[in-house]
């Protein structure tokens, strides 16, 4: 059982923005495919720290986390067990779980 802590600001970019690779250098699709999915494949528990960036658009978060269901094939139950969200802003966690639940339905 291994755990991985991902800081978006340190391990990806302090300036995450956009949804798709065509939207810029640090979109949600890139974070999901280059950082989040590999971490979930290699570790049993993954904590994502959202602090330290210049904020998140829903487009970024939806593609990064909702895309775990659409592109990664993960179930809501599996993600609930293995994925943990850390942020000073309470609403980010609410938003992320909403996107994952919406992607399931």
């Amino acid at each position, binding site marked *: 059982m291994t755990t991985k802590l991902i800081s978006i600001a340190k391990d990806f970019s302090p300036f995450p923005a956009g949804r798709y690779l065509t939207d810029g250098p640090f979109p949600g699709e890139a974070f999901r495919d280059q950082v989040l999915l590999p971490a979930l494949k290699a570790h049993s528990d993954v904590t994502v720290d959202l602090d330290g960036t210049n904020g998140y658009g829903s487009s970024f978060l939806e593609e990064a986390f909702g895309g775990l269901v659409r592109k990664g094939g993960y179930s809501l139950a599996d993600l609930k067990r293995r994925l943990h969200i850390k942020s000073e802003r309470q*609403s980010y966690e609410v938003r992320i779980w909403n996107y994952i639940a919406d992607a399931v339905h």
Partner: protein
Amino acid sequence: MPVGDLLKWLPPVLVVLGWIVVNWQNDKRELRKEARSLIDAAKKLVGEIAVKAVNYHVDGQHGLTFEIKAGLDALEIECERLPYFVKDSPLMGAHVAFTDAITGGDFEATAPAKKAPNSPEVATILRTRTEMLAELERVFRVHHLGRGGSRRPWG
């Protein structure tokens, strides 16, 4: 204890009780004033963010992304000072819906599509803005005026 002795203590007891009541009323009034100013500041931010969001989506002012995201963060920080902004609360729900309406879809895309003023996207921004404003007023009524549990200010 003789009645005379009891009556001797009555004035100071009444003074202390009166002081407790006045102090409680003062605390309540100050809390209400503080909440009112927080809610007014949050409502101002909601209005400003909605205007920037419409300028972004309708007029194609794509340089506003940072200001919009910073504004939404500032709004959340303002709301967090209210004790009833907690997970699964209607106020948190309204804030999330407002944020999603503005920054969902193709927000921050390289070339986001310009939306018509009467498009569903703009209608959703304006609806969630109104719902956020109404929710801010509702929590003030419920928690500081002691009335109006309805989710609608006119309910």
